[in-house]
């Protein structure tokens, strides 16, 4: 690819957010970090190529809601969901919100790369 893809990482867990961002950078992607869906919406207006978002974020919009929001845009942004929770039906909810993948923490980079390729169409 000629242009480096920019991935937005949305997660309230600081430690993981940083780890994922750096992992993406080490894989050759650009990454930007947001502590909440609200922060992402306030700051970014379609300037990223893909959003990786945690589903359960306290006190605000959930990742599912963010996914629905992004899917309803005129220029939809691909969304990858991430979760630490093992709740039945979550995969269905994630898919219904328009995301292309659900990653379950902890996950290895192979799985991440696979999801990114699907999301970015490579």
């Amino acid at each position, binding site marked *: 690819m000629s242009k480096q893809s920019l991935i937005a990482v949305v997660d309230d867990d600081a430690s993981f957010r940083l*780890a994922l961002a*750096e992992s993406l950078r*080490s894989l050759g992607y650009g990454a930007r970090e947001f502590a909440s869906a609200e922060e992402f919406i306030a700051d970014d207006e379609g300037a990223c190529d893909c959003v990786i978002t945690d589903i359960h974020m*306290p006190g605000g919009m959930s990742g599912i809601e963010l996914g629905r929001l992004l899917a309803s845009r005129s220029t939809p942004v691909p969304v990858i969901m991430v979760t*630490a929770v*093992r709740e039945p039906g979550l995969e269905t909810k994630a898919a219904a919100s328009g995301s292309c993948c659900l990653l379950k923490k902890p*996950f290895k980079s192979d799985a991440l790369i696979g999801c990114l390729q699907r999301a970015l169409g490579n």
Partner: protein
Amino acid sequence: MIEPVNLEDIVPLGAATPAAPLESILCTEALRDRPSRPPDYEKENAALKALVISFGDSPQTILQALADKVLEILDAGSAGLSLLTRDNKRFYWAAIAGAWQPHRGGGTPRDFGPCGDVLDRNIPMLFTHWERRYPYLSSAMPLAEEGLLVPFFVNGKSVGTIWAISHRDHRKFDAEDQRLLESMGRFASAAYQTVEAIDDLKSEIATREKAQAELRELTDNLEAEVQVRTRELEQRNGQLADAARLSSLGVLTASIAHEVNQPLAAIVTNAESSLRWLARDEPDIGRARTLTDRVIADARRASEIIERTRDMASQRAPEQELLSIDDVIYESLSFLRHELLLKEVAVSLQLADELPQIVGDRIQLAQVVVNLVLNAVQAMAQVAPADRCIAIRTLLLDPETVCCTIEDSGPGIDPEHLPRLFDRFFTTKDTGMGMGLAICQSIVEAHGGRVRADNNSALRGARFSIDFLTRRAE
């Protein structure tokens, strides 16, 4: 030995021979008429003295001693005592000395025999060849030439006879014999009453002892049963506490997994990144080192989560320390983070400033708060997610009391259940999580505090208030 005879058993000889009339076998007046020996008081006293000593030695055998003595001082062929049975139907020969000794235990019918005749009249009687009237006595060998019977009385009632028999026709009884026999009779009377009293006493003692033994056994059984039941109850108590603890843990296993997955995910991601940097043609050691540091930090974070979870499950002895109630609340909410998220419950905190510290066991108090909040969460299960609220407030009630309230927007507590809410074993259909209000109460009270429940919640649900004692000035 002659078997005791029933009147029905007596078959008239040949059925045609009637019994001789009583007069024909009586010769009582002969006692008066015959020449009598002078009274031998010495002999009488010696006999009585000997009997008294004998009675002192062995009350149970006094009747036999009496029979022996009568035999001796009357120079009789046989002597003995007849006693009326309790049913008043016959006499049995309680003691016999002399030739008739083998017949001991036999007897005569009350209504048809020499003893019966004497007791009918209550006077001494002298019989001769009584088998002419009482044929059954002919089997009592050797035959009686004469039989002298004297009644003896107990409490004015005649209960038997004392008698002497001569088997030789040249030994006939006289007035002195009658006198001596009557004297023996009086002694027999006293002896009999005493023996009866002793027997009654022994019987009563035996009954009492038996009753006491039974009572003791019942008491022992009861005590044993009480012990068993107490142990069962204690066990059940422990089981309930365990079940409650486990159920809250079971429910929160998901939250533990969720929480621990965060640092684990960071560890995996960082470790893989680190390996990637090290795999380059020019490995970036600096970056790898930074990432490794983060891995260690996240491993510690995971460990703390597990520790906190173990704390919540702990059953250790309470440790006292100075605590800030706010810290206890934060720790509890941290533990419940995932549960609150999952159940979409909003928690608002209104914590007073600069509250004095309280003294208590950090973990136990956190367990109390965790369980009250869990109860609140459960109470709101039927409430729309958007309306699920918990409000936690702290305030200073007075200089010595810090109060923490936990309110929810559930349906509130049924007023009928309010008085018994903290009772052991009290459950309503809605409870099932948490360690039980009874245990909450016992922990709080062990800290010198109080826990109360009412429906005075601004959120229109239930309100639980915990009062804690602040650290008192020494």
